[in-house]
C-alpha cells in the first residue's frame, strides 16, 4: 500500500491533467482546478515542514555544542526575528519586516548574484584554454561572440557584431533546439513512466 498509493495518486493526477488539456467542460475544468488548488494548499503546509526541519537541525547543533554552532545560532536568531516581525507586525510597507528585507536580505542576495561575474571569469579561464583543436575553435568562437557584443568589437572590425549574431542565431540556436527537442521527449517519456507506475525509483525503489 505504501508504494501503491503514491503510484495511484500519480496516475490519477497525471490522467486529470491530460484530460484537462484535451477535454473541455465544467467537469474537466473544475477537476483540474481542484487538483491545482490542492497542490497550492499542500505546498503552503509544506513550508511548515521546512521550518520545523531547519529549526530542529540547527537547534541540535547548538544544543550539542558542535564546532560551527555559532553559524547555527545566528541562523536561529535571524529566523526568529524575521518570522516574528512578519507574523506580529505585518509585512506591509514601512514595517520592520520590510525594512529588514530591503536593508539586509536583498543586498545580501544581490551580493551573491554579483559574485557570479567572478565565478564566470574563473570557469571561462578553464574552459577556454586551447588544449586541442576543438577547444581552440571554442575559444575563437567565444572571442568573436564576446567582442561582437561590446562596442569595442565594432571598432576592431565592423563585421564582428554580425558574425556574433550569426553564431548565436544559427549554430548555437540549432544545438539548443536539438537539446530542447531531446529534453522534451525525455520529459514526456518520463512522465508516461510515472503516470503508468513504471518509474518508481523516486520512491527509493528499483
Amino acid at each position, binding site marked *: 500500500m505504501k508504494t*501503491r498509493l503514491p503510484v495511484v495518486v500519480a496516475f490519477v493526477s497525471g490522467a486529470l491533467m491530460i484530460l484537462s488539456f484535451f477535454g473541455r467542460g465544467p467537469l474537466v475544468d473544475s477537476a483540474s482546478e481542484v487538483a491545482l488548488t490542492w497542490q497550492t494548499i499542500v505546498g503552503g503546509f509544506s513550508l511548515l515542514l*521546512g521550518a520545523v526541519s531547519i529549526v530542529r537541525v540547527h537547534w541540535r547543533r547548538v544544543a550539542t555544542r558542535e564546532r560551527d554552532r555559532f553559524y547555527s545560532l545566528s541562523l536561529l536568531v535571524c529566523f526568529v526575528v524575521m518570522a516574528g516581525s512578519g507574523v506580529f507586525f505585518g509585512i506591509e510597507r514601512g514595517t520592520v519586516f520590510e525594512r529588514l528585507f530591503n536593508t539586509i536580505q536583498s543586498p545580501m542576495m544581490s551580493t551573491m548574484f554579483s559574485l557570479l561575474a567572478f565565478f564566470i571569469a574563473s570557469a571561462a579561464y578553464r574552459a577556454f584554454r586551447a588544449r586541442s583543436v576543438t577547444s581552440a575553435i571554442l575559444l575563437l568562437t567565444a572571442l568573436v561572440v564576446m567582442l561582437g557584443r561590446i562596442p569595442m568589437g565594432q571598432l576592431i572590425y565592423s563585421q564582428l557584431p554580425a558574425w556574433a549574431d550569426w553564431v548565436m542565431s544559427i549554430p548555437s540556436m540549432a544545438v539548443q533546439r536539438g537539446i530542447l527537442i531531446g529534453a522534451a521527449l525525455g520529459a514526456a517519456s518520463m512522465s508516461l513512466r510515472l503516470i503508468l507506475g513504471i518509474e518508481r525509483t523516486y520512491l527509493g525503489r528499483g
Partner: protein
Amino acid sequence: MPVTLPDKQARIAGVTPTDVFLGGWLALVVSRWLLPTCTPCGAAAIAHAGLFRMERLNALVLCVIFAAAVLWYIAHARRGGTIYIRPLPGLSAVDEAVGRATEMGRPVVFIPGTGDLDEIQTIAGLSVLGRVARVTARYATPLRVPVLYPLPMAAARETVREAYLDEGVEYVDPETVQYVAGESFSYAARVGGMMLRERPAAVIYMGQFTAESLLIAEVGQSTGAIQIAGTAAPDQMPFFIAACDYTLIGEELYAASAYLSGDPKMLGSLKGQDVIKILLAAAVVIGVLSVTLGWGSAWLMAAFEAK
C-alpha cells in the same frame, strides 16, 4: 481464463488492474462529491460545446503515436528482446565517485536541483538520488542532500529512507536530507559554505538549475571533488560543462534512472522515445526540403502547430 484487452494493456504497462480500479474509483469520488459545479446544467453545456478540443487533435495524435511506441518497446523488453543503450560516462562515474568518497572518508553531496516537486527534472534527480543513497548506504559513506523547497525535502527524505532500508541500514541522521533555504542565492551561500567546511569527495548535481548553478559548481570545483552534473536547462549546461568532470545533457538526465536501474521496462521506454526522435528528425528534414524546394510547408506547420 482469457486475459481481456484492458487487463493485458495494464499488465504490459506495469500497472495492475487493481491500480486502474483504484485510480478510477478515486477519480469518480473527486468528480462526484468534491466538484460542486458538476450539475445537469453543466452536462448540457458539455453536450453543446463538445467534450474534446478539436484544435488539439494534432497533439493528441502525436501523443498516441508516442505512447504507442514507448509501450510497444516496453512490451518488447518484457518479452526478453535485447535493448542497447549507449554508455553514459557520467552515470558510470557515479559508483566511482562514491567509492572515492568512501576511500577518503569524506561525504558525498547530492543536489537535486533548485526546482520544486512539480518540476519533472526534480523527479528525475530524485530517481538518481535513490541509486546514490543505496550505494552510500552499502559503503557507510556520509551523504548530504541540501534541498531548496520543503516538498522535495520530504520526497528526498523518503527516497533516502527507502534506499537505506533496502540496504539494511536505518536512516537516522537528520542532517542527511535537510531543508536549507527558500531562496536560491541563500541556498547557494549555504551549500557553498557546507562544501568548504566538509570538503566532500564527490558532488552530484541532478535536476533543474538556474543562475545559482555556477556559484555552487565552482565552489565544488575548488574543493577538488569529483563533480557529476545533469540538467535539461540549456542556459545552465555551459556552466556545468566548464565546472564539472561529467555532464549529462538534456534527455540524458531523464534517461538516468532507467540506465542506472537496468530495468528492461524502463530501458524499453527509452527505445520508444528514440523512435519518435527519428520520426521528428525526418519531419525536420521534410520541412527543410519542402520550404527549400518550394513545395509549400503549410500542411507540415499545421500538423505541428501548438494551440
